[in-house]
């Protein structure tokens, strides 16, 4: 058992999971103390499968940067996995285009339940440079229903992506 787990152990057994979740929601997430080691606090790691839904590759650059030694998302318990079958989270960068619809849905269905999706980038919203393109489509209903968060930004910076993922991993328990 890791040191941090030992430290949290009394808290974990002392409170029911629901109460624990409520308590977590009350904490000031923006403070640096809480934004670190969040995935470990929640007691589980998060496996992410990233899918390019048809983006201009800027978003991919930022997802790659998340795992460089400066941001190093892996030390907080997040990892990129190659198969959606091993993923807790599908991270889709947009806009979603017609030609990727079938592929994204196939990846989504390959995920184990419960399926969770995070979308990333302003191109999922109206008013973006790509909105109205004939080959750009809205998020399929199934995927939209499983969406747990949207990270705004064009594309969001690694810091912004990290902040949202941390928050999610805390609430995911």
């Amino acid at each position, binding site marked *: 058992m890791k040191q941090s787990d030992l430290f949290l152990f009394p808290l974990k057994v002392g409170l029911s999971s629901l109460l624990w979740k409520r308590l977590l929601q009350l904490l000031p997430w923006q403070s640096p103390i809480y934004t670190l080691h969040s995935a470990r606090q929640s007691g589980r790691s998060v496996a992410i499968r990233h899918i390019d839904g048809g983006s201009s590759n800027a978003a991919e650059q930022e997802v790659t940067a998340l795992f460089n030694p400066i941001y190093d998302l892996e030390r907080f318990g997040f990892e990129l996995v190659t198969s959606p079958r091993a993923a807790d989270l599908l991270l889709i960068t947009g806009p979603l285009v017609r030609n990727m619809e079938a592929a994204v849905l196939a990846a989504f269905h390959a995920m184990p339940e419960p399926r969770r999706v995070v979308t990333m980038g302003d191109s999922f919203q109206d008013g973006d440079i*790509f909105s109205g393109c004939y080959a750009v489509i809205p998020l399929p209903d199934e995927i939209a229903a499983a969406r747990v968060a949207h990270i705004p930004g064009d594309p969001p910076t690694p810091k912004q992506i990290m902040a949202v993922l941390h928050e999610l991993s805390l609430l995911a328990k």
Partner: protein
Amino acid sequence: MTAKLPVSHSLRELCQSFGTELHSRIPNQMHFLVTDGQRLLKLGEHLRNENFYLVTAFANDERELEDHSFKIYYLFSHPVQDLFLFIEQVLPPEKEEYESLEPSFPAVAPFEREMAELFGLFPSQAAHPSRRASFLHAPALGSLYPLRRDCSQSEIQAALAGFPAPLANPGGSPPLLPEGEMFLPVGPIHAGVIEPGVFLFRMGNETRVEELQIHLGYTHKGIERQFQNRFDLQTGWRLAEGVSGDSAFAHSLAYCQAVEALAGVVVPAEASLLRGVFLELERVANHIGDCAALAHDMALDLPASDMAVLREKCLRLHSEIAGDRFLRGMNRPGGVLLPQPLEPGKIIKAVAKIIQEYLGLARLLTELNGFRERTIQVGVLSKEQATQIGVTGLVARASGIERDFRIQHPFGPYGQPNAQGLLRTQMTGNRLLDLMSREMRGDVFSRFLMRVQEVNLSAHLIDHFLEQWPMTDSTDFCLPLELERVNAFDFGIGYAEGWRGDVIYWVMKDKFNRIYRCKVRDPSTLNWPGLKVAMEPQTAVAPQSSNLNQPTRWETALADFPIINKSFNLSYSGNDL
């Protein structure tokens, strides 16, 4: 303008025998009209013999305009001099076939595919090009072609809804193979943070690649149509920045230069310098990132991590200067708008520090046996092959072809004699590391060295441009454009040598200040066939083999594909549009 009279003179005579010359306002461009397809083929052969290369080709729906027909435009460049040849072919009204230039210029193939799918124009002598890899993955759209002007967006949207892109065999079912051979399909989603596309490998045995088929189009967004629908000449730079996110500055620069050529405006000297600085900053950041990815794919994690940190430092520097990590939002047709006053001293210092660390790491890599074994003579694209298929940019230079728009067609600040001097000595003469005296042979190692060399050169250029910076606190270096005075249906060509190669924009104005047609050409479109060739087995004389008469057969192992692919690092989004 370095174009000497004799060449343009003899060329003019040659072209006049095949077509009519049209007036061109730009001194380094010659503009001809050819109506007869057969004569165009003849002219193509002549141009091929004179070593001209194809820059871009595209169709335009001008049925509403004075010629009442489709037109096909070809842009060629002289191999050495600053001379563009722009050929326009008017198809007879109601005719949707043209003569393909593919026999003389194989590089025209991806453009013909675009014409077939987006315009419904087909070459008369070749097989139906949409049978090859396709953009729309919906062969049964009927008479709906997205870039025809009588075709509405909603119609196409409705028609496309019934055709999800196939996940397996986008190029049709593969044929039966002899025993021992097999197909290995990969994609469209890959095992990593990269863009989507399908690679179909024909394997000779479990490891040996016999053939690679590349099927792209998965990120097709309909960008060229979007230029016409939602943007006007003044705002189109926003969409240009979204064509390929990692070369956003090169794209917006080429777009802005096309509009400036249309309006006949020369931007202020400061704006020109800034564009040079930012273009080189983008090059530095991306080349460093590519080297990091290459090292990472070979499990050389120490240099890979250090280089990834350097790339992050570059992006943070961009963010400090531009308020955006990808240098977006500054280019405007007519000049540059800075979000805050420039601090040249800080940039020079930051770049110098990054470059120094980077060169140390690059030297470390070039001396590592593990790195050399996996890169030297791997993924070879020989000079002959590269010339034949017409690749461009960094890939062409790494194969020993001297093709650089900064030298050959100097734009903006690159026309300065000192900048030219820097470019010429660095690209051809003084090699940076001892190892660089090695000739560029078109393998992965050469492409890596080329990146190192270009980063070093970029640092010199950034210093050179910033030394001339007039120390002003002003942030607005933008001239107003008088687009109302430009004739309707005039067009302009803009080009910039981005980090992948030359980015070309062709912009035609309509009656108002909107875009009638904008053709985007990312260097990736020309370079994807290069990746295919580099993956396939070759028979040639190995340069370092003792017996020079003995041709050797090179084979590519499947495990080398990620490395070869990274060494090209082409844009899917810029290709699919």
